[in-house]
């Protein structure tokens, strides 16, 4: 199952849980599952059904341009990160 790593500022919602396995085929479904388990998580990361502006999802170390539509593999490692702008 994909492993999602909970960002430090959101661990107040997960009771300190740092990471957990979630059965999901996309980032959107993963967030829905997290929100079901940890009420309020969805509000922290979503706006109008999309990732909040400035929030990115990294899958296996790579920032995905697909946001909630990004597909997950059974061994995917998922991180939520803030956007990075280069020069």
């Amino acid at each position: 199952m994909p492993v999602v790593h909970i960002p430090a500022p959101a661990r107040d919602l997960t009771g300190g849980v740092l990471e957990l396995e979630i059965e999901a085929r996309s980032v959107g479904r993963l967030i829905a599952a997290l929100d079901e388990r940890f009420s309020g998580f969805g509000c922290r990361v979503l706006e109008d059904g999309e990732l909040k502006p400035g929030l990115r999802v990294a899958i296996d170390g790579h920032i995905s341009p697909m946001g909630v539509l990004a597909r997950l593999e059974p061994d995917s490692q998922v991180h939520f990160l803030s956007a990075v702008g280069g020069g």
Partner: protein
Amino acid sequence: MATVKERQFRVEPFPGGTAGNMRLVEVGAQRDYNVVGTRPIRHDGTDKVTGRARYGSDIKLSGLLYGYILRSPHAHARIISIDTTRAASVPGVHAVCTNADMPSATHRAGDLGEGIVDWYHLNQNVLASDKVLYTGHAVAAVAADSVHIAEEAARLIEVEYEILTPVLDVREARSADALVLNDDVRTDHQPAGEQGEVPTNVAKHFHYEKGNVASGFEQATVVLEREFTTETVHQGYIEPHTATALWTADGKITVWTSTQGAFLIRMQVAELLGVSISKVKVVPMEIGGGFGGKIAVYLQPVAAILSKLSGRPVKLDMDRTSVFEATGPTPGSYMKVKIGVDAEGMITAGEAEILFEAGAFPGSPINPGCMCVFACYDVPNGRVDGYDICVNKPRTNAYRAPGSTHVALATETMIDEICETLDICPLEFRMKNAAKAGTERIDGPVYPLIGMWETLKAVELSDHWQSSLEGPNRGRGIATGYWFNAGLNSVVNATVNEDGRVSLIEGSTDIGGSRPAVAMQLAEILGIAAEDVTPTVVDTDSIGHTDVTGGSRTCYATGLAAIKAAEDIQAQLCQRAALLWDVDAESVEYVDGAMLRGPAGQEIGFKELSGKLLQTGGPVVGRGSVNADKPGGAFGTHIADVEVDPDTGKVQVLRYTVVQDVGTAIHPSYVEGQLQGGAVQGIGWALNEAYHYGDDGRLHNGSFLDYRIPTCYDVPDIETIIVEVPNPGHRFGVRGVGEVPIVPPPAAIANAIYRATGVRFRSLPMSPPKVLHELLSRERASRESTVD
């Protein structure tokens, strides 16, 4: 599979380079390309050296008016009223505008791909209506028959201000009793945190944590905690900002401008002016430097409004003082960093608190600063807190590896100090602790294949590192740096001409040689010469959305688009050859040497087939569109030799070598140029560059006479060693190049100065007065202790 220790390397001249352009070669790991790795003459070279290249200020249009922007003389003030009556009545004036002529904006986030912008804040930065938040903040604009009339009229605009006390220091701005710049700003805790409820200057708080930090420090033999500061600095591009706009009666807007991203300018102009993006065409002109500072709009919307009001095209050019006062800078900072290392020289824990100036509005590169502070090393336990803090300075913008140079000063000088404490070679320490494939950063992601260790190996094998440095007041330092690089959207269209050459069009503005680098990737796939490809950067109506030339993404992502376009051409040519030979297209191969081969051994060359396209179905156009997501991060390690004049405090850089993993060097000369240019900018940041503000918030050094960037007299020839650890996310292994080289210089030079003088500098710039002050203070202390 060979372990790292069994791999064998050598450093040798990079073919075609000049003296001092080297590469690291791993024995038995050669790659064979025909075009990639060669040094063809740049396609835009003739126009550049003959003065034919067209920059933004070269635009001349029938009926052109010239604009002038009135700027605030105050760093912090409330605007009570603006009266433009007298200015509008000046003969030769055709339009006067203020923020009231723009559609009202609301607080919504705009995603610029490489960063986020609040549309209300951008609206207020372009033309202020409520408050001015820095000296030089734009307030109103005039268009007239000449720039002199426009300037004279602008001075007749009457602005009544309620002057407020400026807030210039991040620590002061963070305090609970600080005057708040923006009443609408609340602290946004990221990533995925909650938002604060009270007005504040602290716009964002980033928090990352890994492992058990307390336990990590308990395991340490040596724990250091140090504080650092850096000053506000500018990108220092030579070409000032410029924009010419024409708003026609049918509601279409054309903007000619100097920008790193025409599509991002289109998006911002459309949003701020309340029109559809399809009504806006942005024509990117040649660009005289950007380095991150030419992504946001300043003049473009104002020129468009003045054009709408006057019915004529309007040009706005900034003077140098306005460039310094109102654009650019990268933030000043305060950092407190703590590192623990065990007796074996292994890092056990790291902790950092980082405060960045956002400038007038939120948006400093504090997040990448947080993510980079320990990114070069395998740090098992860590905690990083970063704060984006508004102060009365220009709204900060990206500058080469935004945020990473600041934090490298802290981490890399502390590592030098730790190595001295533990009596460990600083190169050996870095090799032991280097991040590698599988290392988890403190912000979470795990590195894929990276080349940090290989850059250190190249340092070890380099002539520079192996040479001795003799003489008094001289010292050598090294430092390492990291940048993520970016992917994002790119489009390339390529048309095969009947003469066997290819016209390539792209949306990536060419800052540092990307035209040839992109053309070479297409040529490599097609098996033709780079000179047989003509690359052209086109306007936003002529190509699909292409993100900004920034984040070191263009050679990687637009290169991928070129590769896709080339593959599309190959597939179409196979169909044409199949038609000629009356065989199935699947049975035709595109083989090395730009040749197509049929199932019965038939052959036709690329050039010959190109001449038959119009008779076999029409022109062939290859299309490549990508949303790239595996840019591959990059690391660099620099070696600096300096000599410090004990009488003046002047630091002379004697020898400087840049070592960087670039994945694969498509055009080594441009790679070397990026490495050298970035290093020189970093040397300027280290030794001289700083905004000097008075207590009233007015900038005292807004010119290149007083804001001193390095010239060729200040730096030696910068030596380079290209390391090529291929990026698995690119067909040829390309990684971004342009940002990393600015990261290590301040730390490398600080470490070298320490070796030369025994004084540790934790504050930039290390300018002659500061260095001399420290040397004299130490001398005085030494005398006093002798007397005692």
